[in-house]
């Protein structure tokens, strides 16, 4: 192969991996890569912060199922990626992050913009590389995409010193990866699958508990076949929303801390839990010693470390959910679940999700209207906190890859850049970020990225002028001591305002409508319930980014709620 620079090799590799879009910010240690980038076929989006770039790559990956790619310079560029890498790592999202590094000879010298990227990103990535020889670059690029997208997916970081980008090599691009240490199990053990089928056949009160792994493996159809053939109800985790249509009679919607009453009751009373691509997170299980005490557990996961980590698995099945579920459906003898389904139908009737549907402007109503007016066809991203939970509860998900949210890490500021990434990958889709007034300010600068690149994302701020979820905990568990959760608290406010909201300053900071306009987006303020639908309709018709500032009830709470450390059937609210 003819000689070319390391920078050229990187672009060649990206094109060979069919990378269409990329997000990032240039800098001194990646200037050689950028010198090749604007001559390539890759569409590049210049974000306003590296955190925006990595979340956008993550949102792109979640919405399209392809690997998301981002690039940042050495030092602060790389450290700014850390939160986004950790977000992708916790939620098993395939991302490849390229970082510049100071020249090889300067490494360890505390050079300008030097950071130990390999060490800093080790625990927030699936794997990472420091390229020490330009001849290794084609192989490392190939391996990185392979590792990011196979097995349990995750982010991979490639740290590339500046001299390596400039050095020349004739090393060819490998056709295949040859890694003796990395061969994720794809096919589940047939004996284990048979045992799982037998357990299902014998069960009386089975529940499928489906997680993000169903979406990652693209096995939502196989899951549907299993549930409908065996007549087993399905609850999904936050990460699993969309893996099973919530409109289906067997759907129990989300479980866990803010899950539905009926999903949590079903988990408590089940005699068999079939976990698929889920990891028994503490927000799902509640008090672990009380969890699933009556149930046997079938645990299907491609990552052996997920199995038996926090909950014992009676029948572990290591393998790709798509393969395992397909085999399971083939050999399964459906159990008799009529009585169980009847019981669950009663719970669904008695404990439907609800809120006070009165004259006040309530956040749940806004989310319901977003669902209604987009006909459930939108891609929803969320920030983190109350907005995220209401988006999970009151929008009805029927398709995979339509709900983008930081589940594991809980990263505020994720939603807007993720929406931008999704919109970049799927230009014909309506992409809506359901946001809070706290979270949105953590990456609001990306409104510039959306506007400059004609990415017409819609930002719906559920503005309660609080860091709402923390305020809710303060209300419920800290005697209403709203210590620093009011986002409108000013230095001249009384130290304890007693939440006498009548005396609050009339003007909120920031003025989100003016802020949207400053970036070139359309800003709309909604203060009354009857204005909600017209505003959303207007936003959906506008072919540019729109931000709606919904000035909602200040002290609305997310219910039902399982208090931290309580068992799943000890729910507050939603029981009326």
């Amino acid at each position: 192969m003819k000689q070319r620079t390391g920078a050229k090799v990187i672009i060649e590799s990206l094109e060979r991996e069919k990378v269409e879009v990329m997000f990032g910010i240039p800098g001194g240690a990646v200037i050689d890569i950028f010198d090749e980038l604007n001559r390539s076929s890759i569409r590049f989006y210049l974000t306003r912060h590296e955190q925006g770039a990595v979340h956008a790559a993550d949102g792109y990956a979640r919405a399209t199922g392809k690997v998301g790619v981002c690039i940042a310079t050495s030092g602060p560029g790389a450290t700014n990626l850390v939160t986004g890498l950790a977000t992708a790592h916790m939620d098993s999202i395939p991302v490849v992050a390229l970082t510049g590094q100071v020249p090889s000879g300067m490494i360890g010298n505390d050079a300008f913009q030097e950071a130990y990227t390999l060490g800093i990103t080790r625990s927030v990535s699936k794997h990472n590389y420091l390229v020490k020889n330009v001849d290794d670059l084609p192989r490392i690029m190939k391996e990185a995409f392979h590792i990011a997208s196979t097995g349990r997916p995750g982010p991979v970081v490639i740290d590339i010193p500046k001299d390596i980008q400039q050095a020349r090599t004739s090393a060819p691009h490998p056709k295949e990866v040859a890694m003796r240490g990395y061969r994720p199990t794809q096919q589940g053990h047939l004996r284990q699958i048979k045992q799982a089928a037998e357990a299902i056949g014998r069960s009386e009160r089975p529940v499928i508990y489906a997680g993000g792994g169903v979406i990652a493996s693209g096995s939502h159809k196989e899951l549907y076949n299993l549930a409908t053939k065996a007549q087993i109800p399905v609850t999904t985790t936050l990460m699993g929303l969309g893996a099973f249509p919530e409109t289906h009679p067997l759907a129990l919607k989300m479980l866990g801390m803010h899950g539905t009453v009926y999903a949590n009751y079903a988990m408590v009373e089940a005699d068999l839990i079939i976990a698929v691509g889920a990891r028994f997170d503490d927000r799902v299980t509640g008090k672990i010693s009380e969890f699933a005490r009556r149930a046997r557990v079938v645990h299907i996961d491609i990552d052996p470390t997920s199995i038996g980590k926090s909950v014992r698995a009676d029948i572990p099945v290591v393998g790709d959910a798509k393969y395992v579920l397909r085999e399971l459906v083939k050999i399964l003898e459906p159990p008799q679940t009529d009585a169980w389904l009847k019981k669950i139908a009663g719970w669904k009737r008695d404990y439907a999700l609800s809120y006070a549907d009165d004259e006040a402007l309530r956040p749940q109503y806004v989310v319901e209207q977003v669902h209604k007016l987009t006909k459930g066809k939108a891609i929803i991203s969320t920030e983190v906190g109350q907005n995220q939970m209401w988006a999970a509860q009151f929008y009805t998900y029927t398709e995979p890859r339509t709900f983008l949210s930081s589940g594991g890490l809980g990263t505020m500021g994720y939603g807007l850049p993720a929406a931008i990434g999704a919109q970049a990958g799927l230009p014909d889709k309506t992409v809506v970020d359901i946001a809070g007034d706290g979270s949105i300010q953590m990456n609001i600068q990306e409104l510039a990225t959306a506007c400059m690149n004609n990415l017409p994302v819609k930002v719906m701020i559920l503005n309660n002028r609080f860091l709402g979820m923390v305020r809710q905990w303060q209300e419920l568990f800290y005697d209403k001591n709203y210590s620093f959760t009011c986002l409108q608290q000013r230095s001249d406010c009384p130290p304890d305002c007693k939440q006498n909201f009548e005396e609050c300053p009339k003007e909120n900071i920031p003025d989100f409508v003016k802020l949207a306009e400053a970036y070139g987006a359309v800003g709309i303020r909604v203060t009354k319930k009857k204005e909600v639908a017209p505003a959303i309709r207007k936003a959906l018709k506008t072919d540019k980014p729109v931000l709606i500032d919904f000035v909602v009830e200040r002290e609305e709470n997310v219910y039902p709620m399982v208090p931290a450390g309580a068992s799943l059937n000890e729910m507050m609210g939603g029981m009326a």
Partner: protein
Amino acid sequence: MRETISVLVENSFGVLARVVDLFSTRGFNIDSLNVAETLDPSVSRMTIVVRGDEAILEQVRKQLSKVIDTIKVVRFAEGDHVEREMALVKVSSSKRGRAEVLEVAHACHADIVDVGDAFITLSAAGTPDQVRTFIELVRPFGVVEMARSGPVAVSRGKRG
């Protein structure tokens, strides 16, 4: 429970850091860790002794297997492997008391590797228990300095 795990890893940059990091990230306790190249210079063998209940040990093995640079994880159970450790122990010893130290050294098959006016350095190798016993026996003479290798292990029989 104590378990000896042998891990074959790629002999490349940063692999040791990755494995050590895994232990601190997950809160596992390492008793000892030994790394050296194998006959194949592209592969290193790590011998790790860990403590924990069965659930923890299972997680340790799984997490080690999950490291991309890990080629193979072998768990040794009682009786299916041989384990050896080495210790270098510098014992304070005047010429007068030396005979007693040498007696212990002889009984434990320890070698004398360095001698001075006020000290004697012994090298002992054996099973971890034998090495521990040796250290206990020389301890009353006054141990100035000590270095232990931590155990290395291979399986019994032909299988590799």
